[in-house]
């Protein structure tokens, strides 16, 4: 989904506006569940029957996580973060539960390629969205440039904030491959680290930026 700069002529004043993903959601779920449509219609239309909970208040949802369709039975109040970490089996634990209030960034995931706090998204509201976590960006054998740079520059200590930083910076570099230091600070001002790795994180982001330049050449 790198179409946000393509500038579809959908609205007089909003050429940069991103197009939305329409999720067919549960009921009409078929193999091809993603479809690009025009923004005015671009509601993540949750089919009516998907919001009809069973008597115990739970409902079955399907999430698109790191390219895989994953199903779980959750409550409407279950956050995306809790759904990923505690309801999927096996769980997706890259996003960490730290503040649970959208104030620390450790649970950062990409929703349709833009960073979001998974603790401030309801799982039912993430149906039909493309969800990417640190696990989806790379594996120890095939790390993405940001992950490689984090290891190389020692941009982690205890590592609990790290998947969130990696995700936020990966999102930044997709949108802005040559960020300045200020832009890097801005992109992860909503991510906090207690061990104090920030300067290393900045170095890693700059290194990854340079690496992606080389890859494109």
């Amino acid at each position, binding site marked *: 989904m790198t179409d946000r700069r393509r500038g579809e002529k959908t*609205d*007089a*004043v*909003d*050429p*940069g*506006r*991103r197009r939305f993903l329409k999720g067919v959601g549960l009921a009409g779920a078929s193999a091809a569940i993603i479809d690009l449509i025009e*923004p*005015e*219609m*671009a*509601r*993540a*239309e*949750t089919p*009516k029957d998907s*919001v009809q*909970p069973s008597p115990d*208040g739970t409902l079955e949802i399907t999430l698109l996580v790191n390219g895989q369709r994953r199903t779980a039975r959750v*409550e*409407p*109040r279950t*956050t995306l973060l809790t759904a990923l970490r505690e309801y999927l089996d096996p769980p997706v634990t890259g996003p960490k539960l730290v503040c*649970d*209030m*959208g*104030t620390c*960034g450790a649970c*950062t995931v990409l*929703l349709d390629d*833009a*960073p*979001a*706090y998974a603790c*401030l*998204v*309801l799982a*039912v*509201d993430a149906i039909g969205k493309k969800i990417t976590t640190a696990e989806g960006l790379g594996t120890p054998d095939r790390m993405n440039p940001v992950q490689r740079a984090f290891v190389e520059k020692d941009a982690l200590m205890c590592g609990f904030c790290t998947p969130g930083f990696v995700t*936020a910076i990966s*999102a930044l570099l997709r949108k802005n491959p040559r960020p300045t230091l200020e832009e890097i*600070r*801005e*992109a992860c*001002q*909503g*991510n906090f680290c207690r061990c104090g790795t920030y300067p290393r994180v900045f170095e890693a982001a700059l290194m990854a930026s340079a690496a992606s330049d080389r890859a494109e050449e």
Partner: protein
Amino acid sequence: MKRFEWTAPTSVAEAVELLRSAPSFADPDEAPRPFAGGQDLLTTMKEYILRPSRLVNLKAIRGLDRIQGDGKRGLRLGALVTLARIEENPIIKRDFPALSDAARSVASPQIRHLGTIGGNLCQRPRCWYYRLEEVVCLKKGGTQCYAASGENKYNAILGGGPSYIVHPSDLAPVLVALGASVAIAGPEGERVVPLEKFFTLPSEGSIRRENILRHDEIITEIQVPASRFAARSIYLKFKERASFDFALASVAAALELDRDRTVRQARLVLGGVAPIPWRVPKAEALLVGKRIAPDLLNQVAEAALEGARPLAHNGYKVPLTQALIRRALTQLAARA
């Protein structure tokens, strides 16, 4: 979070009906809530400040996320337009720069990606007594504003009493300065209200709310009129922590200058210092017909904070806000 019913209407009328027909509630904090980005609402629900029985997801309704118009025609922003889109929109940046500034100043990229303009205007106060489940303060149906005589360094210096919250929105001061209105849909149809009349002081409206929106109403659109001062506008926000924080004080300012740089029209609205975006007409009037100069700036800053009544720990907000006013106006006047 308390259990709730999740509904996803596809039309405004259906949404209003879902809000109106929700199970009866004993306390306004248990009223059903419209749900957009959820970036503030979910935090209040996790702390059991708000305990809605039903959430009405607005994101399946078509047309609520449009950005239309420009500086000449005026701007119409659907309530669901995200802060990230406002921040990045080149026409808003050109014709309504303060709005761009304000959107960019909010929280973090993660919040701005999902947070909407409607939600930003309706977010609840940050006062830590209000935000703590264990404290039943005046705004939660209790009998006291504990901030009034407690830890009040972040609280109101203007317009306070009996509650001393400050309005946390960054977009609100700008939109008030630019003369914006909100379109509100309810059971009786739609009404359009100037934003200045939308927000209510604790001493005027209900102490439990910060605006006139009823529980069965939703904001559908924010309308910013074309004006001669919108293009020369700015939003300055001062945060205690430079990273991800709310305003200790902020200033939205807009000027129309004559060719000889004298001020023809001025708008000055303060944020972070009062329970509502605090417009200072007397300070605005001082600017009209004059050129921006240090002496004038001092007079304007004095006038703007004239009515300030600091509490025990927030007197610093007076010189801080005055400094922001001088800077905002200096920067505006310096623009080509």
